[in-house]
């Protein structure tokens, strides 16, 4: 499985949650597959999906899922100790680890070589780190949501991309509709 197949698989689960989605192809794929107002698409700033998601989670009660990539986590490796030491039980970090920088042409990352982000996350002090195969991502993600315990998921998949259109929505619109979803009460 490649990343876009994981995203297609988990889109029905993401639909009801606040989602912060990584820059580039992950955001473009999720936007094309199932655009939701409750998704904050990153149009720039590689590496900060986990930081933005943790900030949202610490500021309010609803569950927040940050979709990140192995390359992006490596860009902002300092995020893992911050997550470990600021536990938000409504926060899930989903690292889709395909061992490559997909958006820039599939150059290999160190996570696809000797470095295990699962081991790094555990060494940083993250208490609940689950590594899974691509096809198990949906089951593991749903279990993490139901557990109401902060979880880091490392979903291992193959490298590869599909053709997707860029996101042309205005950033302030993306931000505003996301904030409306944060504030919305379900009753």
């Amino acid at each position: 499985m490649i990343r876009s197949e994981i995203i297609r698989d988990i889109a029905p689960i993401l639909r009801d949650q606040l989602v912060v989605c990584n820059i580039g192809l992950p955001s473009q794929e999720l936007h094309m597959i199932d655009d939701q107002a409750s998704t904050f698409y990153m149009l720039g700033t590689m590496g900060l999906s986990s930081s933005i998601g943790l900030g949202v989670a610490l500021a309010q009660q609803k569950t927040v899922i940050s979709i990140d990539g192995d390359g992006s986590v490596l860009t902002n490796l300092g995020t893992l100790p911050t997550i470990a030491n600021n536990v938000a039980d409504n926060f899930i970090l989903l690292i889709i680890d395909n061992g490559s920088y997909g958006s820039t042409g599939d150059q290999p990352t160190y996570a696809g070589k000797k470095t295990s982000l699962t081991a790094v996350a555990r060494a940083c002090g993250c208490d609940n780190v689950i590594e899974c195969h691509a096809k198990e991502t949906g089951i593991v993600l749903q279990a993490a949501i139901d557990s109401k315990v902060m979880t880091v998921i490392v979903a291992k998949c193959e490298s590869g991309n599909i053709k997707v259109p860029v996101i042309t929505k205005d950033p302030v619109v993306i931000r505003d509709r996301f904030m409306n979803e944060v504030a919305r009460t379900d009753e």
Partner: protein
Amino acid sequence: MSVSKKIVNDFVANGIGFVTTVPCKQLGGVIEAVEKEPSIYHIPSNKEDEGMGLCAGAFMGGKRPAIIMQNTAIGVTVNTLVTLTQFYRMPLPMLISYRGELKEPVACQVEMAVHTKALLNQLNIPTYHFHQPGDEQELDAILKYTFMCNKPVAILTDATFWGGY
């Protein structure tokens, strides 16, 4: 009341409830006062761009954020300021120690100081400079301005303001 405590009181009075900090000797008193303030969630970050990501999230989650950092951070965070904070139009008060100004003992700090205002100017970031004791009187108005216009705003505080190192 200490200047540090007054600064944190202004944060609280303006509804700031989420503050990220990167260590700084000059701003150590403010960081300590932030840590002690029960209405503020204090989250130290490992790098300033990470901190700006946390602040962007906290803002969207409904809390007013602020970041405390050194002016060297301007060199680290240009991309984040432009493609996150400004692009999505989010407010971010940045309380900055202006190292490399008068009374600076470390020559290397001057190398970043000479670029600090030029970079902030290039980025169209409203910039205020606390140079004399008492300049902190303006902080309340600066914070109100920041959350009115939804922009990152820089508050540079130098060694003369803090009474030396």
